């Protein structure tokens, strides 16, 4: 395709979008609305992933020694842990600390512990692994280690989070498909109106020897413009709502950390633009096909 033809096609696309400005705006609105719904899904997924990433990156487990072990035996366990190169770091919880913690947890009911001292409490090690894939293996090994009573770990929490993340991912994929289909349908209807208004023109073009693609391209450009404008608008709305609303929600839940919009913007805007442009182009191609059969 020659440069001047490309220029002609792009110009026609813009002129047509402007000529049907109301319908174009309506279609842009639909694209935006679909992308906003999708966008919130993506943002929520990103935040859940962000706030649970420590579960994946640094899985924690706690190895409890038998309370009756003497210092030497505890030292043996600690030595093994310190030499284990699958372990990133560990922290010792001694008997005194464990006793304090137990008291703290019991709160009002701490009289249960009256008459007892810290000797009943086990020494434990809080372990962070380098890699979560070693998890099960390490847990099994230390469970069977002499002098170790129990290994507590957060596998269930990890499983739970992973399950939610997977559901969200499936949900957003389904959402992309459904919302795209709706947007394609509505854009193709908008462009059908343009095409219908210009069917005589298309007919004339066919008679004087225009190729199908020469006729089709300006409509595709129109669809892409609608899709892209819709994408940018929805990104802007999500950006603002996230900046204003996100903080206030997170302030109520101090433990959550909000993913900064800056980190997500590129991914969001590129996803939106891709979907918008694709949906717009597809809508155009579908709606014009019928009128090319002359």
């Amino acid at each position: 395709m020659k440069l001047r033809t490309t220029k002609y096609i792009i110009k026609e696309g813009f002129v047509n979008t402007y000529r049907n400005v109301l319908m174009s705006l309506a279609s842009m609105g639909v694209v935006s609305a679909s992308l906003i719904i999708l966008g919130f899904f993506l943002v929520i997924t990103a935040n859940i992933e962000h706030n649970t990433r420590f579960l994946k990156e640094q899985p924690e487990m706690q190895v409890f020694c038998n309370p009756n072990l003497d210092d030497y035996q505890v030292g043996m366990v600690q030595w093994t842990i310190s030499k284990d190169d699958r372990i990133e770091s560990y922290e010792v919880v001694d008997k005194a600390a464990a006793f304090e913690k137990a008291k703290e947890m019991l709160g009002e009911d701490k009289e249960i512990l009256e008459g007892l001292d810290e000797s009943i409490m086990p020494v434990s090690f809080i372990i962070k692994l380098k890699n979560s894939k070693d998890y099960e293996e390490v847990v099994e090994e230390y469970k069977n280690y002499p002098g170790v009573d129990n290994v507590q770990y957060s596998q269930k929490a990890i499983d739970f989070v992973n399950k939610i993340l997977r559901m969200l991912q499936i949900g957003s994929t389904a959402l992309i498909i459904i919302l795209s289909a709706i947007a394609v349908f509505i854009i193709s209807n908008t462009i059908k109106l343009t095409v219908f208004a210009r069917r005589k023109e298309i007919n004339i073009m066919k008679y004087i020897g225009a190729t199908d693609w020469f006729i089709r391209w300006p409509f595709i450009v129109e669809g892409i413009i609608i899709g892209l404008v819709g994408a940018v608008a929805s990104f802007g709305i999500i950006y603002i709502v996230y900046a204003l609303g996100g903080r206030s929600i997170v302030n109520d839940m101090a433990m959550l950390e909000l993913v900064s919009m800056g980190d997500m913007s590129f991914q969001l805007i590129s996803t939106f633009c891709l979907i918008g442009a694709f949906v717009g182009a597809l809508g155009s191609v579908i709606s014009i096909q019928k009128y090319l059969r002359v």
Partner: protein
Amino acid sequence: MVEYRAVSKRYPNGTLALSDINLTINKGEFAFFVGPSGSGKSTLLKLILKEEDPTEGEVFVNGYELSKMTRKDIPLLRRSLGVVFQDFRLLPNKTVYENVEFAMQITEALPKEIRRQVPMALALVGLSKKAKAYPGQLSGGEQQRVALARALVNNPSLLIADEPTGNLDPETSWEIMKLLAEVNYRGTTVIVATHEKSIVDAMKKRVIAIDRGVIVRDQEKGQYEDEVKNHQIHY
């Protein structure tokens, strides 16, 4: 230039529009297709444009064997032809100049060539002064002349006109016919489908009369109606 070989056309609804047509129109000829509405003369033109395909037989146009052309090649065929319709078919939101220019744009012609050809075509039909007007501001005759300029701008070797004077008053019709004769004089083959008796009679060109899908008469320097038949009616 145009050849029909044993062409028959039956429309999907069962109407037999053409039946075993054998006809050749040579380079440089001026031919009228005459006949009542529904006689099949429009179908003959549609076959040239490959708007319709024959049910049987073959059509050759400008060296193309149409049955061997795919949908993709149709634009190439149509660019080698000029077409004029009864209802002008101009783009209302483009000026006269742009309407003519458009026919060259779609062929991806060089801008330099466009700037040379478009004024020439407009001058040929006598509309140089109306280049900036919109079709809505022109009379029917002027609009048809714009359509003619558009048909001629790519220098086609064959010009097809389907009832070109159907929407025009007699005087304007004559102007258009004179232009078509002029175009023919310059070497373009011209085929005109019409049922304007007075024009056909006065032009003294080849007349091919079609009725109910068959050629009933093919005369050089012919008349709209058969003279013998005419004679009998008068008696």
